[in-house]
């Protein structure tokens, strides 16, 4: 990754609490885009709400060749489950547009169309923290070309089934999310920088590297779900504070919430996101700095 990091032109985290019944976002989306979006799924509505709002934050339009990398752990799981139920219990085939809309990359198609993009449209996933997977995949490519990277997680109903799917305790508040980063090496006034993403042998090595990266402000640390669940780093190192922004509920874009909220906050400082999957030998570390400390 480039030494100075990759400028982030805009960052935004949209989240909605999950209630007893799905709320249609059509009106909200129409207000945002100024036109009616026809024949799109709720999942695509959510993707569009985040992506368009993120771009609007920058008061600029992405270049057509901007790459679109969307991640989602479960994609449009609600509509997929409904179609399977209808097929197996009701012996009814999927309706054509319903089938098209559950294609994993269809939300990206509509985002690309709304924003006038013709570069790559990728849909990725990796267990939890899929956003980090996208950033790892892009690596230094984002230092040379613009990318819009988003994490989109939609719920399905009833919520208790979705909780089982997400392996969270009964009664845990759930949320939907559409969190986006606009990485743009050509941006002169970024809100912050993606400084580096690397695999490191120990948390200490990551902390040391992150502390040396920033040039002012607070040092903030967020552990990924796997590390947190393992009880790692129960004691916060001296000079560091935990960064754990409140959200309306649980979704699998927790890492995206943290990175986007920090970058959008304007708070001077350096944020280190640290995770380690049981399959991995090394720790995966992401370091971002916001405008004040990375200018």
């Amino acid at each position: 990754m480039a030494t100075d990091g990759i400028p982030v032109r805009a960052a935004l985290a949209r989240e909605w609490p999950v209630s007893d019944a799905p709320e249609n976002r059509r009106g909200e989306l129409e207000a945002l885009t100024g036109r009616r979006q026809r024949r799109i799924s709720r999942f695509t509505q959510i993707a569009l709400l985040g992506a368009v709002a993120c771009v609007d934050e920058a008061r600029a339009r992405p270049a057509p060749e901007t790459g679109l990398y969307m991640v989602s752990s479960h994609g449009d799981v609600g509509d997929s489950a409904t179609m399977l139920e209808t097929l197996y219990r009701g012996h009814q085939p999927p309706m054509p547009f319903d089938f098209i809309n559950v294609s994993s990359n269809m939300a990206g198609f509509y985002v690309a169309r709304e924003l006038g993009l013709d570069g790559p449209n990728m849909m990725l996933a990796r267990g939890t923290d899929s956003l980090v997977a996208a950033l790892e995949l892009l690596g230094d490519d984002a230092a040379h070309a613009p990318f819009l990277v988003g994490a989109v997680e939609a719920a399905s109903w009833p919520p208790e089934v979705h909780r089982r799917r997400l392996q969270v305790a009964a009664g845990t508040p759930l949320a939907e999310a559409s969190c986006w980063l606009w990485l743009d090496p050509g941006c002169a006034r970024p809100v912050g920088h993606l400084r580096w993403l690397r695999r490191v042998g120990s948390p200490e090595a990551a902390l040391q590297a992150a502390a040396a990266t920033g040039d002012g402000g607070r040092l903030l640390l967020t552990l990924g779900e796997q590390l947190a669940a393992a009880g790692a780093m129960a004691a916060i190192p001296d000079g560091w504070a935990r960064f754990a922004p409140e959200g309306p509920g649980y979704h699998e874009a927790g890492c995206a919430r943290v990175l986007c909220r920090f970058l959008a906050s304007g708070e001077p400082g350096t944020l280190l996101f640290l995770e380690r999957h049981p399959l991995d030998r090394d720790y995966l570390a992401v370091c971002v700095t916001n405008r004040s400390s990375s200018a």
Partner: protein
Amino acid sequence: MAVAADNPPAAVLGAATWTACGYGAAAQARSLRQGGAAPSTLSPEMAPGAAYAYHLLADAPAGLLEVLAPVVAAALDDAGLRGEARQACGVFVGSSSSTVAEAEQVFRGQLDDPAAVPLDAPGGHGRLPERLAEAVGLGGPRFYFGTACSSSANALLHAQRMIARGALDHAVVVGVERSNWLSLFGFDSLMLLSGGRGRPLDRDRDGLVLGEGVSAMVIGPDTPDAPWRLLGGASRVDTETPTNSSPESIAATIRAAMAAAAVDGDEITAIKAHGTGTPGNDLAECTGLRQCLGETLPPVTSLKGGLGHTMGACGIVEIAATMACVDAGFWPPSAGFRTPDPELGVTPVAAPVDLRHGRFLMNFFGFGGNNTACVIERHGD
């Protein structure tokens, strides 16, 4: 924008494949030389009296991982990847239906329970590479690609990119698609299924026939010892319609792929078309090919008449099958082809063509406007 522009080539170090044509490279070559596998006929329980063609894996276990893990392990063995190198190998999985086949198996067993719902299990798309890595003993970075029928082709280009910038030494790239009713009835609802055997690029083509396929390919930094190399490729989105790519966007993708591979049009030895066999897709692809490469094309083939359309797996499945055929000394005929279609302006090869090396254009297109193309090369012996 090319995904993999200016990258050094990646060497193909090993592969393993299981399709309706059989298990292994020799089976692919043997079958495709003679026109590929005939599809099986399925009669789904929820559509009494209906019959659908589907290219199925013969004698395969039902479980997704039970098929996937041995194929990936075989590819790693073929590449000679052991110890530390194997442990650090990245995993790139491309699929369209992901774990839907598994979810259907589970739900089919729960239908007596009115409270049961489909997909009521932990995980998600991203868990598939995790489970695979765990089963095969891989500890490198893991990625799932869900870009419809270009999924595993995109996985391959991104694996090449990570190797090119030194972020990985090796990657195993996987295309996987198992039969499932949701895909079958979904394509049926779109009226895209053939009434019989698929006839890509034929005047009488009437749709696609789905296929199962599980293929894995191990790539690494370029080496003079490797007979096969991935030179480069590109992926672009066409936002005209969600299901059909335009000839212009196809041509733009092919141009970008050739630029990324540093190959001119007249250096392309043969073309593996995406060639689904639907009237519209084949017409758009052939028009795009002619716009890009001119009216006189090198030998063109579609493998989907012999393998079926393996959806998100078709990238790795069809590259592996192409490699098997060229290694066996021929360019495969376009299975199911009988009669040229003047409107296409492209006549695919109807019989095997002697061919042992060259640079091959490989096209893959998918729903969501995903257009991907790449160029692979086999050295002359």
